[in-house]
């Protein structure tokens, strides 16, 4: 006889894993397999550690670089001629005695004017023999004060001076790269270079400058000589003044310069004050960070894939356990949450340990190189969260797989 099914379904008290039990249960699952947990953690540890180290080291390097250059930067002002060109195209807003006027300002250590000769890079040779190919070099007119403001150092001979300027002598000073191109190794025998068919005696070779490294591949002739032979600066090759100041005087000098040089029309000159530390730091970060961020992101990705793989293997290995938990009343959601929590814990632990090791590494580097250790609290405090997020993302798929294990697997262990 067929029995009658009840019409009313008796209530069934639901089962679920309480939130307060989730953390202890997940921690327990991790601590009973310490080797596996450590190996799983390693990927995130390296990724987060690399991230913190990269930020820390670039920060320190930027500070170190800016610290090294800040003295030079803080003592350099440039002035551009932005006045209107005359009818013949010349541009001569700087007065003839600009070096002396600016040199008399308090805080200025050297100042001078320079401009490129018209026509761009010129053919320069050491002989008039037509069979010898000339070299294309940048030739500049410069006052003696300009070479002084450059902080030029000669390996051979001397720089031209006010005497050469006053007498419009046909002398030249070569940057070491320009000298190498021309095959000039020494100024001791006063070699000659030819420029537009005119000869110039080489009086010195510059082997180092404190500012404007491009000067090492240029040829300099006195400004008065250049005016006599090639005319005034033009709108296509305007004059600019380089001013070296004492430390801390640059801003004050920058304010005084236009009026000191052209009290009648200061607007003809544009003063460029020293760049700030912040700007240089930002430029260093901009150059370094994309590269290192990409590397640490790649490491994090590898770490995430590592967590995903190991967790997936753990799901397969723990199929019997999952089946048992399901048989004992765990809902698919409980299994999902537990496996996700385990992955998140592994990621967070990796993030914490990685951050701690990275901080230690940064301190060691700072100690070894005698640098100032710089740790951004925002980075140090949030870095472990990157591990958490990595763990969560990496644990999603394995957790879904775990939740799909049927309770029947308890019988098939």
């Amino acid at each position, binding site marked *: 006889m*067929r*029995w009658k*099914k*009840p019409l009313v*379904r*008796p209530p*069934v*008290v*639901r*089962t*679920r*894993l*309480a939130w*307060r*039990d989730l953390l*202890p*249960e997940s921690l*327990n699952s991790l601590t*009973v*397999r310490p080797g596996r947990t450590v190996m799983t953690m390693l990927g995130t540890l390296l990724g987060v550690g690399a991230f913190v180290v990269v930020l820390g080291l670039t920060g320190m390097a930027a500070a170190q670089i800016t610290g090294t250059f800040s003295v030079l930067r803080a003592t350099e002002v440039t002035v551009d001629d932005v006045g209107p060109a005359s009818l013949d195209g010349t541009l001569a807003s700087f007065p003839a005695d600009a070096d002396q006027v600016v040199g008399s300002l308090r805080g200025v250590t050297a100042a001078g004017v320079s401009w490129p000769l018209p026509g761009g890079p010129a053919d320069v040779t050491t002989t008039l023999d037509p069979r010898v190919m000339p070299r294309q070099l940048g030739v500049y007119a410069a006052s003696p004060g300009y070479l002084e403001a450059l902080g030029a150092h000669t390996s051979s001979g001397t720089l031209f001076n006010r005497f050469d300027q006053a007498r419009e002598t046909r002398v030249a000073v070569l940057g070491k790269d320009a000298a190498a191109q021309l095959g000039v190794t020494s100024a001791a025998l006063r070699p000659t270079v030819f420029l537009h068919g005119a000869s110039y005696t080489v009086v010195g070779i510059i082997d180092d400058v404190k500012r404007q490294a491009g000067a090492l591949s240029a040829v300099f002739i006195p400004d008065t000589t250049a005016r006599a032979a090639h005319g005034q600066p033009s709108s296509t090759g305007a004059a600019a003044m380089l001013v070296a100041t004492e430390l801390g005087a640059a801003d004050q000098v920058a304010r005084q310069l236009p009026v000191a040089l052209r009290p009648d029309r200061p607007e003809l000159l544009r003063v460029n004050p020293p760049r700030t530390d912040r700007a240089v730091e930002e430029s260093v970060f901009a150059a370094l960070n994309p590269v290192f961020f990409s590397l640490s992101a790649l490491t994090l990705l590898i770490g995430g894939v590592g967590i995903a793989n190991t967790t997936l293997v753990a799901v397969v290995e723990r199929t*019997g*356990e999952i089946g*048992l*938990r*399901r*048989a*004992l*009343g*765990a*809902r*698919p959601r*409980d299994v999902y949450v537990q496996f996700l929590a385990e992955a998140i814990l592994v990621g967070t632990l990796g993030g914490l340990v990685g951050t701690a090791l990275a901080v230690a590494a940064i301190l060691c580097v700072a100690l070894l190189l005698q640098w100032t250790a710089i740790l951004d609290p925002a980075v140090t405090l949030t870095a472990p969260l990157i591990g958490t997020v990595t763990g969560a993302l990496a644990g999603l798929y394995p957790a879904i797989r775990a939740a799909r294990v*049927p*309770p*029947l697997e*308890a*019988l098939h*262990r």
Partner: protein
Amino acid sequence: MPVIQTQGLAKVHAGPPRVRALGPVDLTVWAGEYLAVLGPSGSGKSTLLSLLGLLDVPSGGDYLLGGVDTGGLAERERTALRGRRIGFVFQDFQLLKHYTASENAALGLLYTRARASQRLSAAQAALDRVGLGAKADALASTLSGGEQQRVAIARALVGEPSILLCDEPTGNLDSATASAVLDQIDELHAQGVTVIVITHDQATAARAERRVILRDGRLFPEASP
């Protein structure tokens, strides 16, 4: 009062090939009864256990568990019914090796929202009940086979289920240990627990009040040929 009633209960694996693993099976188990289901390998014992234990979904037939019609229940309701009403004892114990005996026994209550302290005291009581109270803090991996099976019984009992479902409970034990475990099950039955043992072993089945035989997926009274 029946705690289990099945009518036409069947399981067919869709395949291919299509295989009828069980049924149709009509079975009634009364509260406090000790039933043994005997059968050779491949007779459908494990399939019957998985259906009675709500570990799997039948292909056909009706199943009332403690008066609840299990047909059409949502997965979470089946899970709840399984967790609250049925205690499982598996052939290979299914203990978590790195957990202590107490933690293993308490696992049966993990999903009931009981507090940890309540779970552990209930686990201790269950271990005392199977005579393993002194080994509550021992790791499962350090226990003998018989002790592990007693921990598994304690885990099955800890939630006070109405049915104890045993799958070859002595299959992995030597005869002396097997006898001790069966004594334990006898004792629980004497205390009023409904016991269903699924086994191929005559000696194990001999302890039951009633025996049925499963052959080619069909259930027969013991006396049938």
